[in-house]
């Protein structure tokens, strides 16, 4: 028995990789469609967008690159749908150079789906270089930070930016972040100084560090990882990629839990020698 447990503890990693592949692929092919419970932080973000009067200005900073696309892109899609459905003005940008093309494509598609007009209902400013400096610069003057938008038009005089001179004129800013610069950069260099409402989304692995800011009200609403995106899709009554991915995430989480249980049982049975 002890020999068997020791052998099990030294299981070939390729076996685990195969199990992981099966646990990911099978639920995607045969979804269970289990209901997703809405967490208070997701509800808070949804409610904040719901409370904004029509034509309020929402700044969407898409601070991620293709590596985090599966987790953060569904959030972008849902937030754009919600903002456009509420007839809010959307000002989008990115602080990540490798995210520019992806962000532009998401905003353009979202706007086309909702029948919105570029320059009147939304604008994509493009990549803001300088990380925190881009935020400070936007806080001082939007026209100085972005004299032209991604399409090359002068930002000064664009109908979508009417009355928006700096971050102080933003009603709600949202950063979907995969790291630095991201939500915490927006908090430290933007919200704290220019006093706008801030919320956002992040990868599941970085969600725990935002809970202190959530609890004190320093950020309003948070979407944590694929789960947060799935919750938002549920709130919008729209099934998207996040909801589809939740079954795969359920299966992989339970596979890892199973592996942890097996390895600890074997560890105890082997006399804690392994």
């Amino acid at each position, binding site marked *: 028995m002890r020999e068997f447990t020791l052998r099990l503890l030294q299981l070939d990693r390729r076996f685990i990789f195969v199990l992981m592949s099966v646990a990911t692929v099978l639920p995607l092919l045969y979804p269970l469609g289990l209901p997703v419970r809405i967490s208070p932080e997701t509800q808070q973000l949804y409610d904040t967008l719901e409370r904004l009067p029509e034509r309020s200005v929402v700044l969407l900073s898409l601070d991620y690159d293709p*590596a985090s696309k599966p987790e953060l892109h569904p959030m972008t899609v849902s937030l754009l749908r919600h903002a456009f459905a509420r007839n809010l003005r959307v000002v989008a940008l990115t602080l990540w150079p*490798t995210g520019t093309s992806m962000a532009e494509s998401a905003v353009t598609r979202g706007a086309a789906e909702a029948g919105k007009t570029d320059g009147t209902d939304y604008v994509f400013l493009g990549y803001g*270089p300088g990380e925190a400096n881009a935020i400070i610069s936007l806080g001082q003057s939007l026209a100085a930070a972005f004299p032209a938008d991604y399409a090359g038009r002068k930002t000064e005089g664009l109908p979508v930016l009417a009355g928006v001179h700096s971050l102080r004129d933003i009603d709600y800013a949202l950063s979907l972040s995969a790291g630095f610069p991201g939500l915490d950069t927006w908090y430290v260099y933007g919200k704290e100084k220019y006093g706008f409402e801030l919320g956002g989304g992040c990868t599941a692995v970085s969600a725990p560090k935002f809970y202190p800011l959530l*609890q004190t009200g320093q950020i309003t609403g948070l979407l944590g990882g694929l789960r947060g995106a799935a919750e938002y899709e549920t709130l919008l009554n729209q099934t998207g990629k996040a909801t589809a991915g939740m079954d795969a995430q359920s299966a992989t989480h339970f596979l890892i839990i199973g592996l942890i249980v097996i390895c600890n049982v074997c560890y105890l049975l082997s006399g804690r020698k392994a």
Partner: protein
Amino acid sequence: MRFWQQTLPLLITFVFGLALVLQYYVPHPASEHFLQEISLWSQIIAGFAIVLGVGSLLSTHYQKITRQEAGWGYSAVLFVSLLTVFGAGLWAEGKAEGTFFGWLYDYVLVALQGTMFSLLAFFVASAAYRAFRARTPEATILLSAAVLVMAGRVPLGESLLPGVGTLADWIMTVPNTAAQRGILIGVSLGAIATSIKIIFGIERAYLGGGDGA
């Protein structure tokens, strides 16, 4: 020589460091204008830093190729990739829609970065199996918390184990928040202390030369 290499950088750091700290507390238009100018300058300097970084990267890998050091083939791949993407970007004037630059982005960069990130799931599963063991009481607490949060954050866990979602939420909002807040306060105090040391020239590692004090 010492003036240009040490005294002047220290003086610039001291003056601008102190000025920007004070600026935060002075809402006068002149002070705000100063911040605007500084942030634009910083963005311009960051642009030049990219040129410097790319130059340094190319120089390092060029040397690896010419000396045929171990793994020089990877350096050649880097050269070819960088020049191809740079050339495609210039040709397309930075626009992705319907260009070769966009094609490279969609079908090379997105796929490569997605693959790299996806590999994490496999390594996490393998590492959890090999390393996540209840060796000590502290490790057992950590392990139990991890299992509860993993189960409570997915619909399957909430369906199979009623209440586990609420328990996972409690772990995230109470013990996690307390620990994160402690880390946040510690990191912030550390950042303030380091900033003061840099502004007053006590910490000089950024000047290079390996002399940190």
